[in-house]
């Protein structure tokens, strides 16, 4: 059964790659010419996806907190799967944000002419830090299995596993102890880095004093909660698929419910403060997504399908793993609407009176709707990420290596 849906998903991702390649061709051959964003709404669908992917990386962070701070040992088994998920989502994030740059080949500028005063620079630093933490973390978690697979001559590609294990053929108790020490150290290191990382990408928006909806100390906190929510939902859903253990899924469901309610509370608080401030820029931006032309993205996609239905499922059926997984799935697939609703409304409100009448060009308008090319590029990146994930879980011991990890917490 599992193999069947895996096979179907792989076929789906290949179709996604083929279909999305038209958008990729448009992007690579003609730059940003075929895209809908402009100078007044300079960030669009791809930046929303970037935030979406960054949020999904929080799954591993959540596992780390629950395991090493709250000592929920059972969740430690999810470590390798969570670390692998982080790397795949980080890859998708890097890919889509590179495509959004006007000159992606100049990213080396971050190294040779960095601006430590820029939040964007620090975000890149923390993205690199995440790679530095999670690549060795995953490696040390799966090393034992890699060596075992490398030694198994009957296994297809055992030489590749031997190579990945750096030629090592024996795994001694000392090696095991050493690897556990290393992974524990990296887990502890990931706690502060993770908080700053998820907070930093809220801070990118929050520090801009010309953006009244964003310019609030609450935004980094909301971004941390948003990341924990989408990441937690993802890891719970994956746990249901790969380690369908009720004892594992049920506590995760409780955690996701708690985060969902906290997130909704913060979101409601932001709207309450925004409306009560009666500042035109804030009220106009809020109106735009609450009662504007895309009200359905907020009320139907986010509030109803992405929040109320999952909250109902998690409250009503906390002991039903299938329902918990369904609730988490709904949260994940609707979370792009949350990201778009944070990103677009503030950009889409003119900050100077009369600006709308100065110059008429499609790049100088506040209306933004992603076009087909933008969606196709997103489909391509998601398909690539999903294919990498499916093949990775099949060819790397990321599921098997989790067993027994709890004993070492």
């Amino acid at each position, binding site marked *: 059964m599992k193999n069947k849906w895996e096979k179907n998903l792989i076929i789906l991702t290949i179709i996604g790659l083929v279909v999305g390649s038209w958008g990729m061709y448009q992007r690579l051959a003609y730059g940003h010419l075929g895209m809908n964003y*402009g100078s007044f709404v300079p960030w669009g669908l791809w930046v929303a996806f970037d935030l979406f992917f960054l949020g999904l990386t929080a799954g591993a962070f959540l596992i780390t907190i629950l395991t090493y701070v709250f000592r929920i040992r059972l969740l430690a088994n999810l470590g390798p799967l969570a670390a692998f998920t982080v790397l795949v989502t980080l890859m998708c994030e890097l890919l889509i944000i590179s495509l959004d740059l*006007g000159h992606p080949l100049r990213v080396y*500028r971050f190294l040779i*002419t960095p601006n430590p005063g820029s939040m*964007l620079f620090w975000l890149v630093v923390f993205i690199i830090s995440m790679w530095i933490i999670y690549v060795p973390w995953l490696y040390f978690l799966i090393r034992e299995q890699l060596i075992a697979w490398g030694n198994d001559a009957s296994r297809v590609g055992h030489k590749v596993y031997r190579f990945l294990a750096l030629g090592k053929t024996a795994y001694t108790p000392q090696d095991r102890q050493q690897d556990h020490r290393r992974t524990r150290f990296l887990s502890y290191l990931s706690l502060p880095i993770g908080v700053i990382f998820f907070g930093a990408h809220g801070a990118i928006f929050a520090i801009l004093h010309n953006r009244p909806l964003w310019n609030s100390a609450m935004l980094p906190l909301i971004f941390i909660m948003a990341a924990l929510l989408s990441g937690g939902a993802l890891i719970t859903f994956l746990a249901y698929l790969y380690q369908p253990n009720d004892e594992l899924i049920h506590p995760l469901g409780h955690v996701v419910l708690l985060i969902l309610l906290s997130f909704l509370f913060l979101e409601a608080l932001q709207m309450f403060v925004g409306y009560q401030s009666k500042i035109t820029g804030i009220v106009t931006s809020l109106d735009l997504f609450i009662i504007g032309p895309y009200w359905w993205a907020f009320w139907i996609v986010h509030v109803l399908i992405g929040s109320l239905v999952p909250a109902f499922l998690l409250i009503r059926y906390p002991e039903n793993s299938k329902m918990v997984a369904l609730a988490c799935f709904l949260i994940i697939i609707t979370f792009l609407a949350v990201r778009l609703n944070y990103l677009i409304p503030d950009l889409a409100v003119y900050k100077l009176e009369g600006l709308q009448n100065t*110059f008429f060009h499609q790049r100088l308008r506040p209306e933004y709707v992603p076009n087909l090319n933008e969606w196709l590029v997103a489909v391509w990146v998601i398909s690539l990420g999903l294919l990498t994930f499916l093949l990775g879980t099949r060819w790397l011991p990321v599921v098997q290596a989790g067993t027994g990890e709890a004993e070492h917490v």
Partner: protein
Amino acid sequence: MARDLPQEDPLIRMQRDLKRALKKKPTDIKWGMVIDIAKCIGCHACTIGCVAENKLPPGVVYRVVLEEETGHYPFVGRRFVPRPCLHCQNPPCTKACPVTATWKTEQGAVIVDYNKCIGCRYCLVACPYAARTSDFGEWYTAETAELPGKLYGQKAAANGYEAHPAAEYGQKWPDRNGGSPVGNARKCHFCLHRLKVGMLPACTTSCIGRATIFGDRTDPHSLVYEMIGSPRVYVLKEELGTRPSVYYLK
């Protein structure tokens, strides 16, 4: 004759001020601009002058003229507020740039290094005045028909004008086939390439109402210095603390 009527064309005086400024040590110059709202007639000549001078492609604009309606019927008014880059003394855009591709020069102009800019557009988001635009690589001649073998067509039309970017910042830029400034953030730079050769910015010389005054704002003998001292002076969005170098007269 009223005392405040100019005895000579302000352009002549500004030209004289500019010559004097250019004799100073570059670090002692601080460029500034004053826009007299009462004199602006909303002709948009400055916008067009800027577009022509810098050969700006479609969707890229450095200087727009905002139109504001004031009062309530029957006591209504209309005023025009030209908005170039305000060259803030505390610019939010330069702080936003992750690769130091934009900065404030010693003379107070906020500029962009097209060869450094990665095109992340964070500076566009950070600018409170929407004074930056991104060059998405648009062409005026995109819709022009191509007639193979004929003298005139899309390619010939493009080659005749827009394929070759203007020498902004005094540099020659590659043809518009994807290289900078395509993909970059672009903005008003006080026509530094003109200033270098003793010419006033294009918006200043094209202003038929003489509403735009430009010069060294630290030179007590300059017209711009005199105007900044006017009781009518104000800046846009003062509350943000950006301290623009472009001032307005009510």
